[in-house]
């Protein structure tokens, strides 16, 4: 494969988030896509970033301990009682 685009791989990896967030100006987006079309490795790189995002999205959600949750719900009752009396 020849270096047929004016954007290097090293430059492209710095633009990936701007590209995925659709924040690249049109001309830059075209340079980015021209490079991707010519470079398998950068296509793999962008796919890896997208996989990273998807896999990060699969990280388990946190939840409050039942004790903390109960305390809060009791606080809500107190708050209401206070609001009614005040």
């Amino acid at each position: 494969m020849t270096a047929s685009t004016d954007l290097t791989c090293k430059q492209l990896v710095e633009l990936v988030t701007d590209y995925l967030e659709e924040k690249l100006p049109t001309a830059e987006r075209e340079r980015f896509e021209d490079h991707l079309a010519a470079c398998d490795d950068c296509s793999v790189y962008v796919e890896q970033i997208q996989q990273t995002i998807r896999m990060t999205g699969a990280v388990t959600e946190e939840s409050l301990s039942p004790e903390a949750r109960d305390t809060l719900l009791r606080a809500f009752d107190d708050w209401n009682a206070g609001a009614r009396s005040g």
Partner: protein
Amino acid sequence: MGQPLPNVAMSAPGGERVAFRAVEGEQQETAEAFFATPDDVRLLEALRRDDKEAFATLVDRHASAMLRVASTYVRSRAVAEEVVQDTWIAVLRGLTRFEGRASLKTWIFRILTNTAKTRAEREGRTVPFADVTLGPEDELSVSPERFLGGRSDRAGWWAAPLQRWPDDKPAEQLFARETRERISRAIEALPSVQRIVITLRDIEGWSAEEVCSALELSDGNQRLLLHRARSRVRHSLERYLEGSEELT
């Protein structure tokens, strides 16, 4: 008593603008724009009707993101839980003052970060957003040795081919658990501001606008922090998935 409550005008996530009804006993709203979402308005009305279910829904909906954000400020999980509790107390106390000029979520997270900051300062910890530390300007997404140097027309191109990773689609649940743990550890190792941004964007699924509003970041800084965080997590996954590092 609590923190000064944030009171800022901004566009709500989703961009919907809904006039928010004045609270009993408060002066009538002015002609300013209001940014509470329709869902916010429904929830707020329910809270003011003593609807405990609505409160429980709200607590559960935001628990994960609140705990993660609080955890980046304070030392332990137990203290993070206390920060979340204190935040909700401040939210309830401030409810009658909530003017709907930010989304309810933004408002809650502003109170959370203020509460967490106060707590972190008391613990003698460095506060992540004391000044927006973006890190070194020249932080690179990929180590420079991975690219060809010199003056050839291949300079700046990959020095060695990149490996494709295994499919991460839901069917591949087997590898998912260890990988998730690997990702969690990579995120924990990030500088705190990067950690908060990638957590809210990629774990909790917030929009860029929501993160900017809640953390008072510019759009450009939010994206830069996200970029650095994702690049580092990708690097960590690469080492793990391509076996150049033993899982400890």
